[in-house]
């Protein structure tokens, strides 16, 4: 076979600075779209090395090592009239056949016959010559680039003009390599494609003419551009090490910041700066937030995690020969810290307790009242949780008092200048201020932690008192959101209720709290005084369904349990997320066992018999009559069932779910033998009903800890 001729394709979209947070997505999207379009246009050879895609803030680049020079020829079949219509009784072509041939400008001889489900038809097979890539690519590239979509795009000429993530300023599109390389000509937004790229804004000279991918890489590297994000990442990590060599310090680990820096530089170079030690009296949280969120600096700590009066910033340049850049950054940071210090001191003039009175002026949500209203509701919900905790001897009366105090102060930091300046520090600032104002540890820690967990990877509140505040906050948030019709739908979740729901489940499970959620949701509904858009019991039902979804999500995504494990467990009921989680973990561990797999098949079979084969006239659920059991497999199964059921029941009460499941799984040989030897749907109605009742018992046993039938084989 002739090897198809291929040529490499290099495409670069030159942009004004693309936002760092969208760059990874934009690169992937461009690469995949282009590949998909080439595939669809049949321009990719069957086997080829994979294309590569890269990005810097100013460019999205795709290199496809092999694009077919020409589409393969394609045989096309045009179906004409049925054969019975195309020929008359003497076998002569009819008018229908002739006009089909004429329409396709061929003679009758060129036509063939094709068998279809509807009978034999006249057909024309014709070879369509593949078109050259050169002709197809301009349209493909223009189309792929114009069709890329972004989370936030813009116009830069006029509404209705081109839309992209930022204005496109140059286009490089090269087919072939070296002297044979040719520009793929197309135009977007008045920019014509060409054979030139541009280097780094400051370090590069431009425009740079390139003749192929290797040449492109080489010229960009000389012009101050590290094209490959993974190269930049490695370089940044090395810079962080090198700058701290000889010290016992390290950069505070921060993957999000690292991603940001990788995607906002073309030539990252580290710079170590310092700040006045006096700022170290400010809490670490505030210093790190200023450095990371506002200045994009890495904070520096020693081996014990103590913050050092230094920072590292990554320049988009090759160095700071005159020291002018370091001076600039240090001055800016000092000013930022001075601001934070000012807020810290100014805020202390009014204690959190004094601020509580002002919460009535701060709106929580227009339909849900002020923060004072919210805090009152949180207290009522918190009371209910504390009562449960005291019943379970998790809490003393003093703990309840601390939790109530923490709730009372939990939202007061919203009135501080610090939180207005650094909204991401809500809760944390409240906790720090409570500490500074002499509130006891259990109170200030609970305030500090009460927005936690903010995601599946975030930690939970440290103490049970923090748990109370966190749960009360989230329960009120969810119930309130549902009550006013702001529940999450599809991709929209304006109040972040999913995150809060995940938080509730996570906290209960990870703090080993076997609280049932129902009474807490009921309490949250009963203390909510709003203009109910729908009946309260409906809201209750929706919230419980929502929490069930959150539980499933948590078990699958947070605990990495299999989809059907989670379904099986939740289908068996879930009063308390903790207990459901324990059942799910147990099931996940034993479900691979030989006995268990067979048993889940048997469980499905039993369900099938009970639901489909048998009817209400065959049986009513009830006790098995032992006297009617035939000796042998039937009696043996019943006895094994009784034993396993008692055993599993005891173990389940003791929350020994794994052992309970094992004792049930041990029924497997008895079940197998039963189905092998005993006919359930026997003629004798009394015997039949008794056997169905036995299966009913087994079904209940196989559904109690988890619905075995939900487990995929």
């Amino acid at each position, binding site marked *: 076979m002739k090897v198809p001729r291929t040529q490499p394709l290099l495409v670069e979209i030159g942009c004004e600075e693309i936002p760092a*947070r969208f760059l990874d997505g934009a690169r992937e999207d461009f690469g995949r779209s282009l590949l998909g379009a080439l595939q669809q246009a049949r321009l990719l050879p069957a086997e080829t090395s994979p294309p590569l895609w890269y990005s810097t803030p100013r460019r999205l680049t795709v290199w496809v090592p092999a694009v077919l020079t020409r589409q393969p020829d394609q045989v096309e079949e045009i179906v004409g009239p049925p054969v019975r219509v195309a020929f008359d009784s003497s076998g002569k072509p009819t008018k229908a056949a002739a006009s089909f041939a004429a329409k396709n400008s061929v003679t009758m001889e060129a036509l063939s016959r094709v068998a279809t489900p509807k009978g034999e038809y006249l057909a024309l097979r014709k070879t369509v010559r593949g078109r050259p890539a050169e002709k197809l690519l301009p349209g493909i590239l223009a189309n792929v680039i114009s069709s890329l979509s972004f989370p936030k795009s813009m116009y830069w000429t006029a509404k209705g003009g081109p839309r992209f993530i930022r204005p496109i300023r140059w286009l490089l599109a090269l087919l072939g390599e070296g002297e044979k390389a040719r520009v793929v000509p197309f135009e977007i937004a008045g920019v014509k494609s060409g054979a030139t790229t541009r280097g780094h804004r400051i370090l590069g000279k431009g425009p740079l003419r390139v003749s192929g991918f290797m040449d492109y890489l080489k010229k960009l590297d000389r012009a101050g551009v590290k094209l490959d994000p993974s190269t930049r990442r490695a370089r940044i990590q090395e810079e962080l090490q090198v700058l701290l060599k000889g010290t016992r310090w390290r950069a505070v680990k921060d993957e999000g910041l690292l991603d940001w820096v990788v995607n906002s530089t073309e030539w990252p170079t580290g710079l170590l700066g310092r700040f006045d030690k006096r700022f170290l009296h400010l809490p670490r949280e505030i210093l790190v937030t200023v450095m990371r969120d506002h200045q994009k600096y890495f904070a520096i700590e020693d081996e014990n995690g103590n913050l050092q009066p230094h920072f590292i910033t990554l320049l988009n340049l090759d160095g700071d020969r005159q020291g002018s850049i370091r*001076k600039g950054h240090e001055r800016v940071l000092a000013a930022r810290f001075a601001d934070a210090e000012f807020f810290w001191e100014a805020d202390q003039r009014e204690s959190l307790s004094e601020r509580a009175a002002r919460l009535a002026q701060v709106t929580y949500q227009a339909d849900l009242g002020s923060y004072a209203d919210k805090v009152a509701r949180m207290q009522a919900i918190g009371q209910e949780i504390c009562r449960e905790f005291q019943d379970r001897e998790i809490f003393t009366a003093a703990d309840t008092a601390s939790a109530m105090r923490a709730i009372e102060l939990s939202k007061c930091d919203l009135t501080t200048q610090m939180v207005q300046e650094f909204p991401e520090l809500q809760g944390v600032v409240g906790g720090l201020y409570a500490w500074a104002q002499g509130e006891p540890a259990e109170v200030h820690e609970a305030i500090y932690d009460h927005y936690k967990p903010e995601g599946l990877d975030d930690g939970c509140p440290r103490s049970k008192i923090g748990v109370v505040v966190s749960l009360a906050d989230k329960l009120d948030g969810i119930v309130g959101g549902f009550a006013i019709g702001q529940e999450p739908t599809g991709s929209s979740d304006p109040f972040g209720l999913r995150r809060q729901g995940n938080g509730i489940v996570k906290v209960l499970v990870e703090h080993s709290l076997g609280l049932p959620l129902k009474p807490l949701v009921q309490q949250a509904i009963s203390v909510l005084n709003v203009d109910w858009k729908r009946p309260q019991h409906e809201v209750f039902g929706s919230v419980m369904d929502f929490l069930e979804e959150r539980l499933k999500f948590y078990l699958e995504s947070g605990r990495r349990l299999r989809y059907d494990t989670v379904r099986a467990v939740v289908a068996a009921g879930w009063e308390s997320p903790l207990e459901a989680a324990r059942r799910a973990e147990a099931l996940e561990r034993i479900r691979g066992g030989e006995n268990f797999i067979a048993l889940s098949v048997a469980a499905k079979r039993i369900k099938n018999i009970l639901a489909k084969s048998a009817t209400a006239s065959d049986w009513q659920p009830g006790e098995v009559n032992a006297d009617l059991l035939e000796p042998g497999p039937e009696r043996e199964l019943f006895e094994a069932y009784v034993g396993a059921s008692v055993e599993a029941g005891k173990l389940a009460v003791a929350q020994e779910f794994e052992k309970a499941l094992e004792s049930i799984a041990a029924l497997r040989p008895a079940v197998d033998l039963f189905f092998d030897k005993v006919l359930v749907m026997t003629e004798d109605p009394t015997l039949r009903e008794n056997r169905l009742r036995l299966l009913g018992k087994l079904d209940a046993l196989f559904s109690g800890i988890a619905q075995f039938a939900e487990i995929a084989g």
Partner: protein
Amino acid sequence: MVKRRRNTQRGSTKGLSFQDMLLCMSAFWSRQGCVLALPYDVEVGAGTMTPDTFLRVLGPEPWRVAYIQPSRRPADGRYGENPNRLLKHTQMQVILKPPPPDIQEIYLRSLEDLGIDLRHHDIRFEEDNWEAPTLGAWGIGWQVMLDGLEITQFTYFQQCGGFDLEPVSVELTYGLERIAAFLQGKGNVFDVRWNQATSYGEMRQEEERELSIYDFEAASQQTCRTLFELYEAEAARLLASFGSASGDRFPLRKVYDLCLKCSHLFNILDARRAISVSERVALIGRVRKLACEVARIYLDRKTVFVEVEPA
């Protein structure tokens, strides 16, 4: 030589003075074909709010303008005690409609013109999408960072007065005090040299203190609210008369001034924290309504004008 060293100890004289900087930037943008407009004489929170931007970005006519605009943000007041925060700061506002394709390079040249050697500074365009809810205006762009200092807001306007823009304008808003402090290497804005003999502090510190005292303490909330309502009612009265009066006799820009007055009063009330979150949304909505009405009438009149002209 000796004299010079003493001078250095007292405070470096490197970098352009504040007023030389104003001259330099004005000259630069004048060379780019910009009209040098005058600072506006009604309190504004930003250069965007003057008619030379708010109205002129509407409609199809090309427009290039640059002006210096003192801008008041009561919430940023610090009684002249904070080295970096000002209640009233100075912006250099530039509008380019339509934006030239090399606008970023032109912008960078404007920095070099001020004596900033970009080979020795870290310049970054960081995503920052600007929005002015009281004006029904928003855009996509960056904050330009110079060695970690935000020196310019660089925006491709998408909407203004609630209208999609055709063509789009680029807005450049330079924070002049910051740039001056940067150029002169000063940690405190009040130490910036205004010219050879006078400091920024001598020119403005007392004013900062007094404006802060008024906005934070002395302003009567009741009076501010009453004034807001009076200005709003006057604007509404005029707007209601539009249509009955013949179009070219309608004092559109005065209505807009009244809208700006409302916006400034709102900012004072906000700085006093006299406004709850929900009321805040409502007041912003009221100011925006005026601004959008003005924009609508401005565009309507223009259409009439354009239609009439060929005849």
